[in-house]
């Protein structure tokens, strides 16, 4: 399935791009992360500490073991620091 992957803050900087479109068979967030990490060292480095990473599926916060379902837009980012 074709999915848009978005990166924010230091994840965006480490991976070197704000978004990309991927073709993937991953069924869960965890499977997608494993697939990305296997691509290149910069992905492996960016996703090294999953405790420091949050995910949103179609702009809703989700757990890291959530199924991807029909989500078109999957965003990875560090814990939020607004306010």
């Amino acid at each position, binding site marked *: 399935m074709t999915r848009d992957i978005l990166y*924010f*803050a230091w994840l965006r900087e480490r991976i070197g791009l704000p978004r990309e479109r991927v073709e993937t068979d991953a069924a869960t967030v965890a499977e997608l992360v494993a697939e990305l990490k296997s691509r290149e060292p910069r992905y492996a480095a960016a996703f090294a500490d999953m405790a420091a990473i949050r995910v949103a599926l179609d*702009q809703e916060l989700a757990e890291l073991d959530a199924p991807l379902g029909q989500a078109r837009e999957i*965003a990875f980012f*560090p*814990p*939020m*620091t*607004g*306010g």
Partner: protein
Amino acid sequence: MRVRLQEAPFDPGAELAGFTGRAAGAGAVVSFTGLVRGDDDAQAPLIRMVIEHYPGMTEKALDAIAAEAASRWALSDALVIHRHGPMRPDEAIVFVATAARHRVAAFEAAAFLMDYLKSRAPFWKKEERAGDERWVAARENDEAALARWRDASG
């Protein structure tokens, strides 16, 4: 309930004046203003702060946070303003105001809005100092602050 996401600076005093002017009958108005701190813990002085956000999700998160506050407390009005982009020391980053008949509801709802904004709205702060750029780390007690609202009915 109104929510504004903007790059432009704003004036907390003017916002409170406008909010209070529309708060006829409320009795109690609480405001919170978050300011960019220029000096922090013996580091080099801050040159500027840049806030990145997630367009699309940010607006949804702000609307959801405001709706949640409105469902928990009997508010006659609430306002949330959050900036993104670059900003300088002592500029306002965020402004929250709540109006209610009694002070406890106004205080609690404003504290709740700030707790949620801190760790549920997709904003990330980067501090730029001489020779150093650093993403601000989330504070563990921001998560703890959120927990207190989870079981409370408000």
